[in-house]
């Protein structure tokens, strides 16, 4: 399975997964302000820390995801990104308080406290989520002349997902649910994306074999 998938159904699934990934990134970022505020407040530098770490994690994710995509790109690795980002999001639910307590005790300045906490909580999952974008472009692109178009489509859906994730979380989710309930929803969305990718991959490779 070294050739990129050309299956139409698989392409749709990849686009949907990129949408959910974009949604998840911004929903988690928006909740980040609430997760950190009990320890570091809502001063402008707390948002500064969160946005910095998200941008840094995404940029490295893009770089590594792009590199990985040049070595045997396949939907199973792609699905693995989603499983790993779901797994790496769990510490935000289970260990945010003990982690931030330690940081709060160790670092007096809330600027650096919030920065270090943002690294510990968000660097790994957001890195993984950043890897999704270049990798999904590689899976969608079947020829060089289509590459720009596919990149445009991917940017479109993932950024649209981010916009919607921001809106839904800030307008409605925080009013309806607790932070951890929203986080569980995000984890579930990421897991469903990974599972769907695997299933569609298996079905389409069976069809190809027949």
């Amino acid at each position, binding site marked *: 399975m070294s050739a990129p998938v050309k299956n139409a159904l698989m392409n749709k699934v990849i686009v949907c997964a990129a949408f959910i990934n974009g949604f998840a990134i911004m929903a988690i970022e928006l909740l980040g302000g*609430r997760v950190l*505020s*009990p*320890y*570091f*407040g*809502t*001063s*402008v530098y707390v948002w500064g820390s969160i946005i910095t770490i998200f941008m840094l994690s995404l940029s490295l994710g893009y770089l590594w995801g792009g590199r990985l995509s040049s070595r045997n790109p396949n939907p199973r690795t792609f699905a693995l990104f989603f499983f790993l980002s779901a797994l790496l999001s769990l510490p935000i639910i289970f260990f945010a308080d003990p982690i931030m307590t330690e940081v*709060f*005790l160790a670092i*007096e300045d*809330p600027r650096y406290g919030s920065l270090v906490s943002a690294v510990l909580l968000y660097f790994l999952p957001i890195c993984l989520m950043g890897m999704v974008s270049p990798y999904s472009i590689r899976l969608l692109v079947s020829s060089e002349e289509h590459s720009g178009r596919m990149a445009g489509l991917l940017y479109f859906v993932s950024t649209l997902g981010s916009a919607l994730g921001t809106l839904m979380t800030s*307008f409605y989710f*925080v*009013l309806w*649910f*607790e*932070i*951890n309930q929203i986080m569980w929803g995000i984890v579930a969305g990421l897991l469903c994306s990974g599972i769907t990718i695997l299933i569609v991959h298996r079905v389409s490779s069976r069809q190809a074999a027949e």
Partner: protein
Amino acid sequence: MKADRLNARMGMLTLPGLLLLASLFSAGVKAEVIHEERSVYRNIIVTQEGDRRCLIFNAVRGERNQTCIALNDPQEMLFHYTRMSMAGLLVNPNPQSILIAGLGGGTIPTALRELYPEAAIDVLEIDQAVVNVAREYFQYVEDDDLHTHVVDARVFIKRAGLEGRKYDFIMLDAFTGEYIPEHLLTQEFLEEVMQIMTPDAVLVANTFSTSNLYSHESVTYRAVFGEFFNFKMPGSGNRVIIAQQRPLPNMGQLKQNANALQATLRPYGVPILEFPNRLTTRADWDESLRVLTDQFSPGNLLR
């Protein structure tokens, strides 16, 4: 808060209602803007009209007088909510270590410093620009025992709790009516506040909450402190929460304290004798609503 602004206006204008309304809608027609600055958190405007100087935040959305002082008589408290804050003294009439979250024009810390020259006072303000304006335009003066900390109140209070520092008079005044700092409304926050209260300490909270938020907030304070004094005054839209860890004083004690404080509070325009009868523990809110927690605190969406 609205009523406060209206009252403040009525105080300075004896004009027909129509003109009064017009002046409410056209910011700064009468008052001259003497200073304007934009901080990372808000726009800060200082206006002056006659001897009345006012601090306004975010004037874009119409006039929002945060605080006003009369330059000829700076002691006089011109707003209901500042006068009402002094009701905390009925519960603890002799505070020695005071914490005030939210500086504004510095009216409250300045008054408490004058009333209690021996007390140690810590003032928390998130915005350095507000501190600068208070010093320069509102006669806010610090001393060896009155310190201003540019910090988020939650961060300061959490650390004070860890370090075992205690206060016997705590005032939460970090709410502007414009934007609600949601992390200062939660059960966990109030528990952290409790950590830094001496056994006889009083907590006074000015939160300007309305509608659903009023109920959520009341339910949350009840969950942490049990019964508290809910204090409202006719002509003022806001309420002040007065809470204590130990049982609240009875009417006799309140009246006794009011009598003792009456003379010293007179220059500030605080009608302290009227206060005891207006302190009630009756729940006039929807008690079925959820307690606000760090997990669930959509204060700005609940108004």
